[in-house]
């Protein structure tokens, strides 16, 4: 009886008693949700266009952030370093297309998945070789990102909003809007959607798969860079960031592998659910449930919609 009470009644009592804490928790959840959504966005871009489950997305985030900070450490001005990092991501995209995607075209999905694992190892090794393995501080000041926080008095208490988080949310929405415009309004965006629908049909109307893959991996690289800057500004840039890639996976299955709105909504649901679960229900089982709670949320959704919230309906034929 006591257990039922502490699961079903007590957390809601706490929420009602301290609404400012509830708002703070919700905000924290939304902010981490935005970052999960950004990583998931990188996954979705690549999965849609090439059917590759890109495990390396997480390490691409770290690699991009490391390149940026590392270049700056070597005396390159911040904005030039940013531009150079974008170039590095382009080179990476071309290299991936040449060395991995082209030789492995038409192989089973699991083989391509494994190949992105190989890519993960290469990027971890390269990153450590070139820039060293120590955690680095993100150059958020030089890039003109705000720091500090707003304190809003409300609901009989106060809520603290980090400026960097607000900036992250704005940049994320700009990026999603930009991607939406590119996908829907430009020639290359239409080609991307054609490839996502059917590789063969796209080839037969003269779309170059190789070119599309480079574009998509480059786009994912830029998304990774933005994610890396945002995440790096909140904590340090280190290989520990790689773990957030694993956090993005439940977002993916929740939103569906092929849906950009799904990635965003899924990210927000997971972010909020995770923080609320940790804050209100975590203490019941000794805390630290953040590591697996997201997966449980995603699983519950999956049991009702096996293709994710926004995924395309799975039709099976013999």
């Amino acid at each position, binding site marked *: 009886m006591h257990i039922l009470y502490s699961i079903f009644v007590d957390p809601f009592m706490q929420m009602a008693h301290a609404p400012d804490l509830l708002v703070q928790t919700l905000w924290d959840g939304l902010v981490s949700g935005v970052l999960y959504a950004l990583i998931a966005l990188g996954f979705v871009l690549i999965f849609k266009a090439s059917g590759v489950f890109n495990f390396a997305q997480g390490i691409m985030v770290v690699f991009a952030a490391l390149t940026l900070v590392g270049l700056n450490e070597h005396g390159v001005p911040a904005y030039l370093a940013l531009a150079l990092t974008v170039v590095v991501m382009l080179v990476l995209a071309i290299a991936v297309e040449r060395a991995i995607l082209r030789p492995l075209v038409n*192989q*089973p999905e699991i083989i391509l998945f494994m190949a992105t*694992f190989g890519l993960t190892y290469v990027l971890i090794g390269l990153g450590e070789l070139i820039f060293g393995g120590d955690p680095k501080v993100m150059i958020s000041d030089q890039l003109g990102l705000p720091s500090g926080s707003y304190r809003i008095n409300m609901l009989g208490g106060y809520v603290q909003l980090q400026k960097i988080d607000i900036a992250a949310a704005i940049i994320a929405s700009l990026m999603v809007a930009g991607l939406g415009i590119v996908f829907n309004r430009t020639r290359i965006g239409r080609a991307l959607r054609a490839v996502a629908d059917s590789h063969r049909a796209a080839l037969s109307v003269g779309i170059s798969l190789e070119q599309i893959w480079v574009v998509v991996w480059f786009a994912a690289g830029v998304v990774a860079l933005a994610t890396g800057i945002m995440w790096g500004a909140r904590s340090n840039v280190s290989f520990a960031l790689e773990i957030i890639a694993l956090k993005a996976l*439940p977002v993916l299955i929740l939103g569906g592998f092929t849906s950009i709105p799904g990635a965003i909504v899924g990210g927000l649901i997971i972010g909020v659910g995770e923080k609320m679960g940790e804050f209100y229900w975590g203490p019941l089982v000794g805390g630290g449930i953040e590591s697996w709670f997201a997966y449980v949320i*995603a699983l519950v959704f999956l049991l009702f919609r096996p293709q994710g919230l926004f995924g395309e309906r799975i039709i099976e034929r013999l």
Partner: protein
Amino acid sequence: MFYREVGQYKTSYAADQALLPILQDRIGIAVILLIAFVAVPLTASNFALDSVLIPILVLSLAATGLNLLTGYTGLLSLGTGGFMGVGAFACYKLTTIFPNVNIIFLILCSGFFAAAIGTVFGLPSLRIKGFYLAVATLAAQFFLSWCFIRIPWLYNYNISASIEVPTKTLFGLAVTGPTASSTTRYLLVLSIVTVLVLMAANLMRGRIGRTWMAVRDMDLAAELIGIRLYQTKLLAFAVSSFYCGVAGAMMAFLWLGNAESESFNINQSFLILFMVIIGGLGSLLGSFLGAALIWGLPIVLRHAPAYLGLHIRSATVDQSTFVILGVLIIFFLIVEPHGLARLWQIGKQKLRVWPFPY
């Protein structure tokens, strides 16, 4: 020429369905077993046993378990590390509760605990497929890792939060714990692995294995010819987790001598998946080849600069190992997407037709 089945007539159904129908295969397996059981313990050094052969055998068993699930039944799982952990912690609790029972029996028993947990986490496989299922099994991995840290009962309220393997004897010989010799442990691991892999091979040529492969090739069609997906998939999860659990128990008791939550984390799951895919999906031989390659390669890479007389900082060597390993994985996938086991098949064909090209 060397490997020719011509003239080996099968005169009974039993001979036709035998595990190794070809004489050369039987001789080959016998020679390998003879070397593994007799020659290796007599000649190998403690280093070779402790850090090469025992790990490869244990990991091969785990890879076999995952291969049953991923290679034969087509269910992608990333929870292998968690299931191995269940085996290890179950074995630890069993040795605490029943201190006088034979250790081999306990190691095998702990596999059943892993099987039970694996079945529970296999339940989503009835609704979801492919990468969605892979991510769902990650839930198992993270939840189990969390349990290994947060439930102190599992590690007997140790301060170190780890399994400390007690010394157990078998026929008066210490087989686990710090006093056990490498050779004893090697022989025990080898025996368990041999028996279990033989069982797996038999499982695969019987009804159960065939239903699994039917589900892998097309589950909808399998259902239409009367295979119950529900039971088949769950059985695959149970058997696979049993193998992983036994491998985990052996890893803690016969290889490392102590183990903690970290030993069974997500990287372990990925490592085993590597072995299965590099070795060859749906091939028991592949599990061994993959384990040998993935475990052996970093050791070789780490010792290579010293042999070549190069002096490189150890950190640099570690990082380069990562890069080279990644490149080699991609290379192997491009050259032979069906894994090392396929290379052996090609080799067999070459031996068959030698000295003629075809």
